[in-house]
């Protein structure tokens, strides 16, 4: 199934390496960054909730 003869052929992309890999790296980079950002957002809000929730539960018990 392998279309390329050698791995260096694959990385060269027929002379269009800059354009093809430049697309892939930036798309992958944005997706990874978005995943990291959204996880940080969740951590932040969970920390806020823990901060406001903790004293109240202590009072109620």
């Amino acid at each position, binding site marked *: *199934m*392998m*279309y*390329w003869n050698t791995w260096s052929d*694959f990385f060269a*992309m*027929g*002379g*269009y390496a*800059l*354009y*093809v890999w*430049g*697309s*892939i790296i*930036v*798309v992958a980079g*944005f*997706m990874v960054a*978005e*995943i990291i950002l*959204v996880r940080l*957002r*969740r951590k932040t*809000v*969970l920390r*806020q*909730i823990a901060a*406001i*929730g903790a004293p*109240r*539960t202590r009072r109620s018990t």
Partner: protein
Amino acid sequence: MTTANMNNPISGAKESNRFHWFKYAAPNNFYDLAGRLIPWVTVIAVLLTIVGMYIGFFVAPTDFQQGDAYRIIFLHVPAAWMSMFIYMVMAFWAALGLAFNTRMSSMMASALAPTGAMFTFLALWTGALWGRPTWGAWWVWDARLTSELILLFLYIGFMALQASIDDVRRADKAGALIALVGVINVPIIYFSVQWWNTLHQGSSINMKSAPTMAKTMLLGMLIMALAFWAYTIAITLYRARCIVLEREQQSDWVKAAGEKL
């Protein structure tokens, strides 16, 4: 009163199997459902990406006109489709939130915007990297590219406007207006290659005729489109859960859930 009723803030009505959709309009029910869906959708996204990229880069042949530069299509077209589709979905939820004052709808619209903006930018970026070797220009002010750039500004405008208003319900309403006015731009992007003489090529697949590309190329592109769909669903549900928690911090169900959130 049962605990099920107390957990359902939209109505005190009896729990019934018939009102599935409205059930998830309640942020706490949505939060649970999304939490259960995210792992599955994530697995689907990863698998589709692996298969799609494999077909695109190891199975699909080199294009006889564009050489291997055409392989950008496996990211460019799915990203461009998502940029338009997410906008429509965002406008749909925003309109629902505006019309019925349902909080969860507006939260979904807010959750979609950053991902839509990202795909719009990526469509423009991959387009520039494709345009340079095929047209000799990173950018031209043709109808397709310009209307896609306007889409990016609409997303940014939606997010900036929402961020600038402290009262979240008013921010939702203002954002919904931008989202709805901007919907007019989506068909303009889509049909721009037919309505005007553009440097951008016409669509490779449409409803009227057979696709003008090799089967493996088309297959790789469609699988990548599905992969981006799954990615969008997973990340949007995840972000929507964050928004639910941010807005519902003071509510009883969040406090009651505590560590289990």
